[in-house]
């Protein structure tokens, strides 16, 4: 691949990696913080999930831009990618729901949102490793 292509893929990979760090780190920090201190890590987790949701498809879009084809993945890699997508969608929705004002069921939701976001982020990170080596 040309240097331009390598640079493009590397840039997306850097964003994707930092997105993963923010999603996991923000979720764990929010889970461990007291309820009044959760706002800042919640935004970090939110930024992480948004970055994941944007940078993930960017890999495929880059391939399409350069080669007019999407990556050829199969079997376990497809399963791992599906898990990543599901985790990113659920993580994004959960954390968005936390950040937006929600008067009803607030207390119960706040107890569950961060363990759930942490579990989703950890699952996505695990699936990423599987996708990397089974693709």
């Amino acid at each position, binding site marked *: *691949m040309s240097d331009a292509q390598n640079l493009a893929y590397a840039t997306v990979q850097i964003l994707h990696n930092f997105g993963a760090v923010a999603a996991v780190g923000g979720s764990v920090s929010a889970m461990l913080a007291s309820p009044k201190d959760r706002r800042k890590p919640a935004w970090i987790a939110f930024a992480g999930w948004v970055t994941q949701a944007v940078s993930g498809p960017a890999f495929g879009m880059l*391939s399409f831009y350069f*080669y007019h084809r*999407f990556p*050829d993945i*199969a079997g376990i890699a497809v399963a791992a990618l599906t898990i990543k997508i599901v985790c990113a969608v659920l993580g994004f929705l959960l954390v968005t729901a936390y950040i937006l004002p929600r008067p009803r069921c607030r207390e119960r939701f706040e107890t569950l949102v961060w363990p759930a976001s942490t579990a989703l982020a950890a699952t996505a990170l695990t699936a990423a490793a599987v996708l990397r080596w089974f693709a």
Partner: protein
Amino acid sequence: MNNSAVSYILLTMLFGTPPAMAVDGKITISAPMEGAMVTAGEKFKVSYDAVLDQNGDHLHLNVDGKRMDILRQLKGTAEIDGLAPGKHQLCLLMNTKGHVPTGTESCVNVQAK
């Protein structure tokens, strides 16, 4: 020193070493041969040799369009699980680091009996 040598040195100093000429990729499947007969339900080996093209990184082994294996060695053999009786197509496709086919490929048709 002639003029072309001087210009080459000056251009190299300005822009760095010129890139190597792009290599045309090639994949050769030496076994089984086109139209060969294989025993249905029995494992067999595909022997191949590949020269990477400019964007190539590794090979994907497909049987009837379905991916069976990823080959990172450019020369060697790959094992294929037993095929059902009938005609099958074995293909080796060159792929980029990002698993996008570069267009360089080689296929053979075999008959499993």
